[in-house]
C-alpha cells in the first residue's frame, strides 16, 4: 500500500534544494553586443562571438555584472571582491563553444538568504531559505528536434538550432539544502520562487516570465527517515515552468520517492523532466556517470573586481523589499488578512497597485481584479497579465460606476467587452449601447407594467411584506434589460406601492 501524503510526512523529512536560473533583461548578450529580444527570427541575433567562430573572444557585459550584484544584495549576499569566470566543458550542439562560460568556485555573490511566509491552517508560517551562491553564466542556444516520438534528440530525424539565446546572460541562484519544511515543503518551494520573482521584478533586472523561460527553476528534493542522519538521494526536476508547477513537482516527487522507498527500492540520482499535463516527472539524463566538466578559469576573461564604493551605491539604490511592500500595501489598503493572502496567492498585488495609482479606490480595484477578472483568467486558463484588460481600464471602469454611468452589473458586461478586445470601457459602452436607465418615466412605465402583471405580489408589498419586493425589482430589471439602477428601481417601486 502506497503511503498518502500525511503518512509520508509522518515517516520522512523532505529536504529541498532549489536552483533558479534568471535571464537578465540586458539589451545585449553576456559576452557580445548582440540583441536579446525574445521571439526574434531564429539566428538573427548572432555574431562571431556567440556563434563561436574561430578567433572570436568574449568581453563581459558590465550591465550584467551590475544586475547580478543587485540581485546578490537583494538576497542578503556577500559580494566577492574578486571572482572569476570558469569554463564548463561539455559537448552539445546548441552550445557553440562546446563549453559554457560560468562561474565555478569563485561566484560573485555568496551566503545570503530569503525569508518567505506561507499561509497555513495554523496561521502564517515563516521560513528562511539560505542562499549558497549567485553566479553569472551564459545561456545556451535552443534545439528543436524534428521527427521521432518524444521531441527529444534521441529518435529525432534531424534537429534545428537557434543561437539567438546563446550567450544571453543568466544568473543562477542556488540555495543551500533546505530542511525542516515538513509537510509545507511544496508550498515553501513555491513561496520561495514567488518571492525571488517579486524581488527580481522589483529590481527590474529580468522579465521573470516563467512561461517564456526567463525564470526557470530546477527543483531538488529528497526524503530522509525521521531518525536518519544522512540525506536521502535527491532527484532534480527541470522544466518547471510556473509557480504552480513548482509546488506540484515537489509534491509529486515526494510521493514518487516515498513509493520507491516503501517498496524497498533505491531512489536514483537523476535529472527528471516535469510534465505540465500530468503533473508527473519523467526520467531524463542519469547523473550516475557524473559528467566531468573540467572546469578551469576562463583565460579569455579577466577577474571581476567590483569597486566597494560602487557596491554601496548599488545597495543604497535597492528598491523596497517585497515583504515590506506587502506589509505597507496591506495597511494602506486596509485589507483583511484572508483577502490579502488571496491577493498574494492570485498574484494581483502589482496590478491592483497600478490601478490604485491611477486614482481608483483600493477596495474596488481589489474586488475587480480578484473577482470578475481573475475568474475570467481562470476560465481561460491564462495569466491575469495576459488578458487584454489593463489597470487603466479598470480605473476607468470604477470611475464610470462611481459616477452612476454604469451599474455593477453593466460594468461586468463592459469588462467582458474589454477582455474581448473591444477597446476601453468607454468604447465598449459606446459600441454596445450600454447605459443606465435613470429616466423615471421609463422606469415608472416598467414598474406599472410589472405590478399589473404580478398583482398578487404587488398586493403583498402594498400590505407591508417588503421581502416580496425583490421579485418585482428583478422583473423590472429584466424589463429594462439590466440597464436600470437597482437601488433606484427599489426606491420608485416602494413609493408606487405606498411604502
Amino acid at each position: 500500500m502506497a503511503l498518502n501524503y500525511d503518512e509520508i510526512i509522518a515517516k520522512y523529512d523532505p529536504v529541498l534544494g532549489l536552483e533558479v536560473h534568471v535571464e537578465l533583461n540586458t539589451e545585449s548578450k553576456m559576452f557580445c553586443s548582440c540583441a536579446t529580444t525574445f521571439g526574434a527570427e531564429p539566428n538573427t541575433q548572432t555574431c562571431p562571438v556567440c556563434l563561436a567562430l574561430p578567433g572570436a573572444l568574449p568581453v563581459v557585459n558590465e550591465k550584467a555584472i551590475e544586475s547580478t550584484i543587485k540581485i546578490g544584495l537583494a538576497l542578503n549576499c556577500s559580494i566577492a571582491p574578486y571572482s572569476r569566470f570558469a569554463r564548463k566543458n561539455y559537448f552539445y550542439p546548441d552550445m557553440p563553444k562546446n563549453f559554457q562560460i560560468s562561474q565555478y568556485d569563485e561566484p560573485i555573490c555568496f551566503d545570503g538568504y530569503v525569508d518567505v511566509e506561507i499561509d497555513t491552517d495554523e496561521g502564517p508560517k515563516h521560513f528562511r531559505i539560505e542562499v549558497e551562491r549567485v553566479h553569472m553564466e551564459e545561456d545556451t542556444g535552443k534545439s528543436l528536434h524534428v521527427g521521432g516520438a518524444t521531441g527529444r534528440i534521441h529518435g529525432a530525424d534531424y534537429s534545428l538550432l537557434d543561437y539567438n539565446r546563446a550567450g544571453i546572460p543568466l544568473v543562477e541562484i542556488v540555495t543551500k539544502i533546505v530542511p525542516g519544511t515538513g509537510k509545507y515543503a511544496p508550498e515553501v518551494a513555491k513561496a520561495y520562487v514567488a518571492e525571488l520573482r517579486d524581488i527580481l521584478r522589483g529590481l527590474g533586472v529580468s522579465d521573470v516570465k516563467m512561461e517564456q523561460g526567463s525564470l526557470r527553476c530546477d527543483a531538488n528534493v529528497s526524503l530522509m527517515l525521521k531518525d536518519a542522519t544522512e540525506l536521502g538521494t535527491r532527484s532534480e526536476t527541470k522544466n518547471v515552468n510556473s509557480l504552480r508547477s513548482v509546488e506540484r513537482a515537489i509534491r509529486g516527487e515526494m510521493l514518487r520517492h516515498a513509493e520507491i522507498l516503501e517498496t524497498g527500492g533505491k531512489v536514483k540520482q537523476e535529472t527528471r523532466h516535469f510534465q505540465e499535463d500530468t503533473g508527473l516527472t519523467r526520467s531524463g539524463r542519469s547523473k550516475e556517470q557524473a559528467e566531468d566538466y573540467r572546469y578551469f578559469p576562463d583565460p579569455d576573461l579577466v577577474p571581476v573586481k567590483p569597486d566597494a564604493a560602487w557596491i554601496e551605491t548599488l545597495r543604497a539604490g535597492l528598491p523596497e523589499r517585497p515583504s515590506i511592500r506587502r506589509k505597507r500595501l496591506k495597511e494602506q489598503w486596509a485589507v483583511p488578512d484572508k483577502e490579502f493572502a488571496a491577493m498574494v496567492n492570485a498574484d494581483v498585488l502589482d496590478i491592483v497597485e497600478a490601478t490604485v495609482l491611477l486614482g481608483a479606490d483600493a477596495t474596488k480595484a481589489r474586488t475587480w481584479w480578484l473577482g470578475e477578472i481573475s475568474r475570467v483568467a481562470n476560465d481561460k486558463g491564462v495569466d491575469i497579465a495576459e488578458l487584454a484588460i489593463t489597470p487603466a481600464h479598470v480605473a476607468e471602469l470604477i470611475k464610470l460606476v462611481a459616477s452612476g454611468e454604469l451599474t455593477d452589473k453593466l460594468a461586468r458586461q463592459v469588462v467582458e467587452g474589454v477582455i474581448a478586445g473591444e477597446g476601453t470601457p468607454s468604447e465598449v459602452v459606446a459600441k454596445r449601447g450600454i447605459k443606465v436607465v435613470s429616466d423615471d418615466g421609463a422606469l415608472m412605465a416598467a414598474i406599472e407594467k410589472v405590478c399589473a402583471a404580478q398583482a398578487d405580489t404587488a398586493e403583498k408589498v402594498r400590505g407591508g411584506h417588503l421581502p416580496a419586493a425583490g421579485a418585482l425589482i428583478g422583473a423590472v430589471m429584466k424589463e429594462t434589460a439590466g440597464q436600470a439602477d437597482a437601488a433606484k428601481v427599489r426606491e420608485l417601486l416602494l413609493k408606487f406601492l405606498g411604502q
Partner: protein
Amino acid sequence: MIFKTATEMADALSKKDISSVELTQAHLDRIAAVDGDVKAFLHVDSEGALAQAAAVDADRASGKAMSPLAGVPLALKDVLAQKGVPTTAGSKILQGWKPPYDSTVVAKLKDAGVVILGKTNMDEFAMGSSTENSGYGPTFNPWDLTRTPGGSSGGSSAAVASFEAPLAIGSDTGGSIRQPAALTGIVGVRPTYGAVSRYGLIAYSSSLDQAGPFGRTVLDTALLHEAIAGHDAHDATSINAAVPAVVAAAKDGNVKGMKIGVIKQLQGEGYQKGVQTRFTESLDLLASLGAEIVEVDCPSFEYALAAYYLIAPSECSSNLARFDAMRYGLRTGDEGGASAEAVMAATRDAGFGREVKRRIILGTYALSSGYYDAYYGSAQKIRTLIIQDYAKAFAVADVLVSPTAPTTAYKIGEKIDDPMAMYLGDVATIPVNLAGICGMSLPAGLAEEDNLPVGFQIMAPAMQDQRLYQAGAALEAALTSKWGGALITKAPALQGRPSALPTMSKGGAK
C-alpha cells in the same frame, strides 16, 4: 626592389619612385617563382592584394596622409581571420572556411594600408616548432631546403627570409615567432601579452598566445609592431595603455650603460656549439658597445617546459572544442541518420592531425577532476615562480638575453617522431610566454659547423617592448658592420621553382 628592407620600400613608395601595385606585383612574381620550393603560403590572394595596393596608390595620389607602411606588402599567418579569405590555422578541419569578419590585427593592417599578399603555412593550430604538423605539408627553410624554417610560424619566417614578403605576421605561444626567426636568419618579436589584440587570432592557448611582427631588420619589425599594437575593446585581456615607442627605440639603437642579464639556465649543456659561440660573440660585442653584462639566476626555468606542456594543452583542449562540424568547417560522417555526437567525433577524428589530438588528450586529462590540482594547478604555481624569477632578474638587468633556440634549423623529418626532442627546442623561448613578457630574436650569425643562422634572444619586462628594439638595433648595427651587410644577404640564392599553388582568384583555393 624585393631585396630591400620594408623601410626602404616605404620610402620609395612615399617618394612615388614605385607604386604599391608594382611592389605588390613584384612580390607576387617572387612567390610564383620560388614558393614551389619554399611552400611558405597556403593561399595567395593576388587579386585582393593588388586591389588593396591600387587603393593605397589612389589614396596617395589624392594627397591623403599615409601611414608609414602604406603600400608595403606582408605575409599573414593563417591563424588570423581575414574576411572572405580562406583561413585554416593549418588544419584540415577548417579547410575552405572563409571568415565573415576581420581579426583586429588584419583590420589594423588594412587601416595602415599594409597589403596582405596571402596566408602562410603553420603547424596545425600553432602546435609545433617546424611546420611539419601542418595539415597541408611542411614549409622549407630558404637557407637549406631540406630543413625546417622553424614553427609554428614557419610559413611567415620562410616568406620573409626568401624575399616573398618584406614583413610578416606570426603568433607566438611558446616561441612560435622567435624560434622560426632564429632558424631563418630574420628578426621576430613576441610583444608583451595583451599588447596586440587576440581578437580573430584562432586560439591555441589563450593565456599564452600573442601575435607579433617579423621583418628582415629591427626597424622594419618595429614599424610593423607599432601598426598592429594597441588596446582593443574586443579582447578582455588587451592592455589599455599607450603602445611603447618601439620605432623610436629601433632608430636609437644604444646599449651604453644598459644592464644586460645573461640567464644562467639558458645556455651550456644542450646548446649546439656554434649557437653558443655566436651568442658569446654577440655578448662581447654588446659589452664593447658599453653594456654591462651580468649573470642572473632563474632556477624555476627548469620547470618551464613541463608547465607549458600542461597549460597549453589544457587550454587548447577547451579552445578547440568548437570545431564540431555544426556551424563551419569540415563535416564528415553525416549520413544514415548519424547522431550529432557521432558526426562530431568522426569530424574531429578526420580533421585534426596527430599532434593536435595528442595535446587535446593531454589537456583533457590534465583538467579532469582528481588530476586538476596535480597538473594544471601545479603548472600555474610554476608560472608564478617563473614570473618571480623574472622580477628578480629585471631588478638587476634592463634586458635579459639567451640563445633563441638551442640548435640551428634541423632536417625535415628529423624530430617529427620524437615530440620530446622537438619540445626541447622551445626551452629558451617558453619562459617569456609563461610570464607574459616580451621577447625578440635577431640574427647573430651563422654556426660554423653547418653555416645556418643562429638567433639571439632579448627579453624585456611587460610593456617595456621598446627595450628590445633599443638593444636589438644596437647589436644589429654592430653585427651588420662586422659582416659587411645584413646576414640575410648571405643566404644561398633560391634556384626558383614555380609555385605549385594556384595564384588566387575570387573563388578561393582551387
